[in-house]
């Protein structure tokens, strides 16, 4: 649409759509001067896909009348990586390493949704060890905290406040350190596997998480002190980007946005999975339908998550689950290799290597078959949804009876929730677009997949 101007700043030209202004930086005076000459008040601004406040590569096309937005259009697809297609050429277990990269701020949720769907297709949902389920719940709740912290941190930064950003990322680092200690990786861990989790908690993990549980409530309080009653913050967030329950239902909005509209709909309560029905926690709601309400829901959810993590720790260190397996006993499905922490990081357990390489030919054959061929999944389709930090994350998994997924589709909440941008932004001020988009908390990796 925009023609290239060589070396010229604030160039203008006549195009079929009207006058096009080329902005090259440090030339706003010239742009403003050129615009003030024309009688046309309507301005179409292209925001993104490289704009720092668009959460990655989201593109917004805003039609402005003065300072108010008359039309907001969203362009996505800049981060499309073909993960769903790629998975059709890998084994069921390898699929985990792909889905974890979709919504990169909530990898554990992607993995769990996918694994629960594969387990449903295999018909082994009830045979997944209780210890694995408790670890999954604990990891998901840790992940929920880290994801919400990024949401609040980047939101603060986008409104021009750097302290929430520093606080948020500092606290998130604590969660990522825990992830690194447990799984070996800070992000994209591929930790949850069909049939259980890849490795049991290492020695000392329970203590480290215990310390985290002691520190974290104070840190959340600090964040609350900083933002809850902050007039600069509340003025930018209260009554901004209003979307009520009717709008949420029509647009398929789930997660904190829906709960900020007053509906206590949380899949952990209404359609529990991984044993969530046995944990004691609340579903925070707000009825303001605005950006501030969504912020309050997220902070309160972090506090509820801490409660769940505490209960997980009690169970994991209790006599019932301590030392129990974390992978399904079925040798035809459970990953044969065990991981162990060596001097150079997490890797194949030396005991397992010694076993298959020097003592048992059958174990070697079994290992080779399961790792290269993988297991077969009976034909059929399954849809499993989990409550991710952004809403209902659904995995629609289809099998044709082979060793690879026939089709995997992720119903990512960011993708659906972004459809609310025109509904929440049109008619508002251009500055509120930033707040509205940030309150949706879209993660483009999940949107585009």
């Amino acid at each position, binding site marked *: 649409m925009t023609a290239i101007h060589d070396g010229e700043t604030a160039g203008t030209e006549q195009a079929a759509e009207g006058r096009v202004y080329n902005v090259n930086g440090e030339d706003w005076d010239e742009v403003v001067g050129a615009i003030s000459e024309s009688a046309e008040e309507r301005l179409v601004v292209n925001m993104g896909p490289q704009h720092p406040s668009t959460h990655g590569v989201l593109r917004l096309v805003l039609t402005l009348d003065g300072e108010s937005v008359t039309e907001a259009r969203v362009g996505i697809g800049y981060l499309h990586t073909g993960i769903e*297609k790629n998975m059709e050429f890998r084994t069921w277990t390898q699929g985990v390493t792909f889905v974890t990269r979709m919504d990169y701020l909530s990898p554990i949720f992607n993995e769990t949704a996918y694994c629960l769907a594969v387990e449903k297709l295999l018909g082994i949902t009830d045979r997944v060890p209780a210890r694995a389920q408790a670890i999954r719940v604990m990891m998901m709740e840790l992940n929920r905290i880290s994801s919400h912290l990024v949401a609040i941190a980047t939101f603060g930064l986008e409104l021009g406040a750097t302290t929430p950003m520093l606080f948020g990322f500092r606290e998130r680092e604590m969660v990522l350190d825990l992830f690194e200690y447990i799984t070996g990786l800070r992000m994209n861990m591929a930790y949850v596997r069909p049939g259980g989790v890849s490795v049991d908690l290492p020695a000392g993990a329970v203590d480290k998480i215990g310390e985290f549980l002691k520190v974290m409530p104070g840190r959340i309080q600090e964040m609350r002190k900083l933002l809850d009653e902050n007039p600069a913050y509340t003025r930018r967030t209260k009554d901004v980007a209003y979307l009520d329950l009717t709008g949420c239902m029509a647009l398929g909005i789930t997660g904190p946005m829906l709960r900020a509209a007053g509906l206590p709909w949380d899949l952990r309560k209404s359609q529990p999975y991984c044993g969530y029905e046995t944990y004691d926690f609340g579903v925070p709601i707000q009825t303001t339908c605005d950006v501030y309400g969504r912020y309050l829901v997220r902070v309160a959810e972090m506090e509820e998550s801490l409660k769940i993590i505490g209960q997980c720790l009690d169970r994991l260190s209790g006599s019932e689950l301590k030392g129990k397996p974390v992978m399904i006993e079925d040798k035809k499905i459970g990953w044969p290799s065990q991981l162990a922490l060596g001097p150079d990081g997490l890797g194949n357990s030396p005991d397992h290597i010694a076993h298959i390489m020097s003592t048992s030919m059958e174990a070697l054959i079994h290992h080779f078959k399961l790792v290269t061929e993988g297991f077969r999944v009976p034909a059929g389709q399954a849809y499993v949804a989990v409550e991710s930090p952004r809403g209902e994350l*659904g995995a629609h998994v289809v099998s*044709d009876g082979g060793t690879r997924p026939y089709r995997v589709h992720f119903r990512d909440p960011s993708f*659906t929730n972004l*459809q609310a941008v025109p509904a929440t932004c049109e008619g508002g001020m251009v500055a509120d677009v930033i707040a509205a988009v940030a309150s949706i908390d879209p993660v483009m990796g999940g949107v585009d997949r």
Partner: protein
Amino acid sequence: MSTENHPDNLPGVPEEPVARHGMFGVTDSGDTSGYGRLVVRRAPKLSSARPYGGYFDEIADGLEAAAGDSYAGMVERVVVDRGELTLHVAREHLTAVMSHLRDDPALRFELSLGVSGVHYPEDEGAELHAVYHLCSITHNRRVRVEVSCPDADPHIPSTVSVYPTHDWHERETYDFFGIVFDGHPALTRIEMPDDWEGHPQRKDYPLGGIPVEYRGATIPAPDQRRSYA
């Protein structure tokens, strides 16, 4: 009834079409894999009869009551599998079924979780499937609606008027599978660039990729590698 080729004490020969012979894509006589006589058949098309169990019967009853006489033509097949209810709906009745599912007090599927496409190239006359997952918050239930259309006439009516959230989901399914949702307000590509040719999630669309050389050995692209099929 016993015959020479089919004695009573053996299970019946499955009638499903053969998906493939052998393994690893070996077709010539030099098959040393030991799988030369393997015959793999396609999974049978499931169809469940009443009672479906659980709340599934209430959903079917509710839809039957709302639709009246046209129910038999609307719902072609009902599948209950792995604790999930799937209604295979004729495409010309899709919007009506969706409206009933959303509005009828006994059904009340207020929330749609969008559209997912699946390409079954061997399912002649119904190659392209659009799969809708609906959720009822009032009754806390789920249902899956599946619609198919032939590759030669890839048209399915749009349901954006019933569930506005399908706007982007239908665009995505069009983008990836080439299903044209008639009546969609602006059916354009959403993930792929506007001038992209082809629909990448179809099974006849190659994955792409280049062979990688590592220490003198060449590892083919993922879709060219030997596989257990």
